[in-house]
């Protein structure tokens, strides 16, 4: 299987990977320019950078998905030219993609063995033995005969990792592996990565989360706008110095949380239940209250019912039971347009960012008009008003665009999201629902959005903030509601609850159950640190 264990790679001074002068452009965008990146055997090397700094492009070049425009790649001292992922796998490089590349409708076993072996024979028995060997060696529990579509995100990731180990990879690339995991799952992943290092594998760890990078890596290479800024020993730099390298200047990472005196309940949701067409409960007896001048955060693993909650409040889905009261008026059964006119605004940033809320091929002005054309007088569109609004929003939110007649799809991700949020805020809502508002944004743009939300909060708007990053949820929101499989497992004061507790609640424990288990858990961690993992 592995053809990489030739004599040359035993020499410790030869880097496992050595990429020099890598350039890659996509149309006008220079994703990588003259990047140098080198990883030793037996180290965890973090690749740090904001979104759009070229991390994923560089790793896709290493895994043979893209071909570089210029530059050279050496694996254990030998120059390689990868024309497909197949070539890169043969060289012992294994990529664990951020968006898992798994066939949902197949079992773990089938996913792991696909693409390996020779001839007609499908040797499942032998594969099963090898898989269990690897799962033991790296302490990963995977049921080989389970369908991937039935697995949790953490289990899917384990399948991805087993898949590359099974191919004999000794250079592993993990592309933002922690983005979708609970804190508990992250800890488990870090242990696995530690084992890989012990086994002498070269591990590349891509992330934009500083604390994780500082905890796990031996060395860090920082990328900024497609260029290598520096490669440093992790221990030699402070967090502030790192962020300065990453962003290009000093940044205050603290998120504001102004205190606002609330003037009453804005939204009251009671026993809300939503079923999909197959009768599966997507929301199960969800109840909560949202006050004016408050940001209520919603935490939960992807697909825990966040989308359904947003869409039900916005009137896009009809609940099968329960009530939603807005200022003590039941809004279940109203049309989306009636709900908008009441002052409820919803923005949802899907994973691909352009899938919902905007028409990518239309310009900014038209997109802003989309939400309020229905309230224009007469049969004609009032373009003048829309243009004025668009101008305002662009100025107010500092959207980087040549003009308001610029096609939305040609804007960068951050600016697209500002257009969406700006349009919602422009409607002067009393209730603002925003899901994944900072998805894929760099630190600066994220902070602009947090400030916008705080501004709304201080105006007395009730904000429902659905987020992914637990650190942000706990710093920005007043209260946090945790969801698991459509149920609310608890609502707590964000100033008092810990990240670990939220993590456990995301997997189904109630708040009170988490209080005890977190205590024992953190004790174990302390003792481990004492024993000196590093």
């Amino acid at each position, binding site marked *: 299987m592995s053809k990489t264990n030739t004599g040359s790679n035993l020499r410790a001074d030869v880097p496992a990977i050595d990429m020099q002068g890598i350039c890659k452009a*996509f149309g006008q965008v220079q994703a990588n320019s003259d990047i140098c990146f080198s990883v030793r055997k037996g180290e965890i090397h973090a690749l740090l950078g904001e979104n759009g700094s070229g991390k994923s492009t560089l790793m896709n070049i290493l*895994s043979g*998905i*893209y071909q570089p425009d210029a530059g050279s790649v050496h694996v254990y001292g030998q120059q390689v030219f990868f024309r*497909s*992922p*197949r070539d890169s*796998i*043969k060289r012992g490089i294994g*990529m664990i*993609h951020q968006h898992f*590349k*798994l*066939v*949902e*409708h*197949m079992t773990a076993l*089938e*996913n792991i*063995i*696909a*693409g*390996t*072996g*020779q*001839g*007609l*024979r*499908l040797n499942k028995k032998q594969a099963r033995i090898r898989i269990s060997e690897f799962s033991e060696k790296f302490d990963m529990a995977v049921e080989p005969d389970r369908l991937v579509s039935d697995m949790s995100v953490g289990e899917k990731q384990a399948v991805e990792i087993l*898949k590359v180990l099974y*191919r004999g990879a000794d250079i592993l690339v993990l592309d933002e592996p922690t983005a979708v995991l609970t804190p508990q799952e992250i800890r488990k992943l870090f242990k696995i990565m530690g084992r890989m290092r012990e086994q002498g594998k070269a591990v590349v760890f891509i992330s934009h989360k500083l604390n994780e990078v500082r905890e796990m890596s031996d060395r860090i290479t920082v990328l900024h706008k497609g260029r290598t800024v520096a490669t440093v020993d992790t221990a030699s730099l402070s967090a502030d110095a790192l962020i300065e390298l990453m962003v290009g200047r000093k940044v205050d990472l603290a998120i504001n949380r102004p205190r606002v005196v609330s003037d009453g309940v804005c939204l009251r949701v009671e026993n809300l239940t939503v079923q999909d*067409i*197959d009768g599966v409960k997507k929301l199960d007896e969800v109840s909560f209250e949202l006050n004016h001048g408050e940001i209520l955060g919603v935490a939960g693993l992807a697909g825990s019912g966040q989308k359904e909650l947003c869409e039900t409040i916005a009137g896009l889905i009809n609940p099968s039971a329960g009530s939603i009261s807005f200022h003590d008026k039941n809004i279940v059964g109203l049309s989306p347009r009636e709900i908008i006119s009441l002052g409820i605004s919803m923005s949802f940033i899907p994973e691909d960012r352009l899938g919902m809320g905007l028409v990518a091929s239309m310009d900014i002005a038209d997109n802003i008009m989309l939400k309020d054309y229905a309230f224009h007088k007469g049969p004609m569109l009032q373009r003048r008003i829309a243009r004025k609004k668009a101008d305002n929003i662009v100025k107010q939110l500092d959207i980087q665009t040549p003009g308001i007649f610029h096609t939305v799809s040609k804007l960068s991700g951050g600016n697209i999201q500002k257009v969406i949020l700006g349009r919602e805020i422009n409607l002067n809502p009393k209730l603002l629902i925003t899901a994944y508002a900072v998805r894929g944004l760099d630190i600066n743009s994220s902070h602009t959005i947090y400030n916008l939300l705080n501004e709304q909060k201080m105006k007395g708007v009730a904000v429902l903030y659905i987020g992914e990053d637990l650190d942000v949820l706990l710093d920005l929101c007043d209260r946090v509601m945790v969801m698991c499989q459509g149920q609310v497992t608890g609502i707590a004061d964000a100033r008092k609850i810990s990240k670990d507790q939220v993590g456990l609640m995301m997997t189904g424990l109630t708040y009170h159950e988490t209080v005890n288990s977190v205590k024992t858990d953190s004790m174990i961690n302390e003792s481990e640190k004492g024993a000196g993992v590093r």
Partner: protein
Amino acid sequence: MNAGMMIALFLASAIRMSIPLLLGTVGESLTERSGHLNLGVEGLMMMGAATGYVVAYRTDSIILAILAGMAGAGLGSLIYAFLTISMKTRQDVTGLALTIFGTGFANTMGKALAGTTTSEKIRAFTKGQPFKPDLTAVSEVPVLGPALEYISAALLQHNLFVYLSFAIAVFAYWYLFHTRPGLHVRSTGENPAAADASGIRVTSLRYLHVIVGGMFCGLGGFYISVVNVGTWLDDIIAGRGWIVVALVIFIRWHPLKAIAGTLLFGALEIVGFRMQQIPALGSLPIFSQYAIDLYPYLMTIIVLVITYARKKAWQGPASLGQPYFREDR
């Protein structure tokens, strides 16, 4: 003739009618399992029918005719594969174009041979019954004798192509679900990006399965023109290619289930034909030739509605119909 024998003969006819559908359905299943929706089955079957018939007529060689039938459709599907896989054109539109092209190509090619028939030699081969058992020894035994007679009449008195087609269906099933390349095909059809990242050669694998799938469709066309009909008629496939497209959904892309699914449609064609021969019924409008020609399509609509009504069921290869760009971002 007793009732048992009538049923046996009915079944035998249904099997004979189902064979071209079976070959097409198995072929199209292979193609679709790799993620390519080829709506050009009608055109491919036309091309296979025409090249097969022309070569059978000119060379008098059944082997060359089979090869020609497969090569004709193989060429058609090569065009489709090049356009959809390499040029990334839309699969549905390309498939429709292939149907129009294939039909025109076949009618042009066959025009000169309209009204001719295949030679004695070819007919002897296509009507041959290689597995017909000699039952004279047991014909007098009560129960067992007639039972064997019925089985023989229903299943064992077919031409070679019938058994060959069943073998192809069983082989395709084994290939897809029990071999390593089969797993690769299914992975590619579900998620080409995942297959690519696993080291599977997505492009060559898709080319292979689109072309081989097309060749089986061509074999189905050859069966209609050379084996079932034995002469050339314009539009000889008469819409069976479209039924195949629907059948693939009905049988859930599963070659073994294709045997049962196509038998149902084969039986339907025979029922209509037999009803027409009964004088009292044949004059009724619902058994007129036009109505009978309509029934398979009516059945197709019903079958599609039933299939898609099962919401929870797997709805076919997930990437079906979508081109794969590796450098997509």
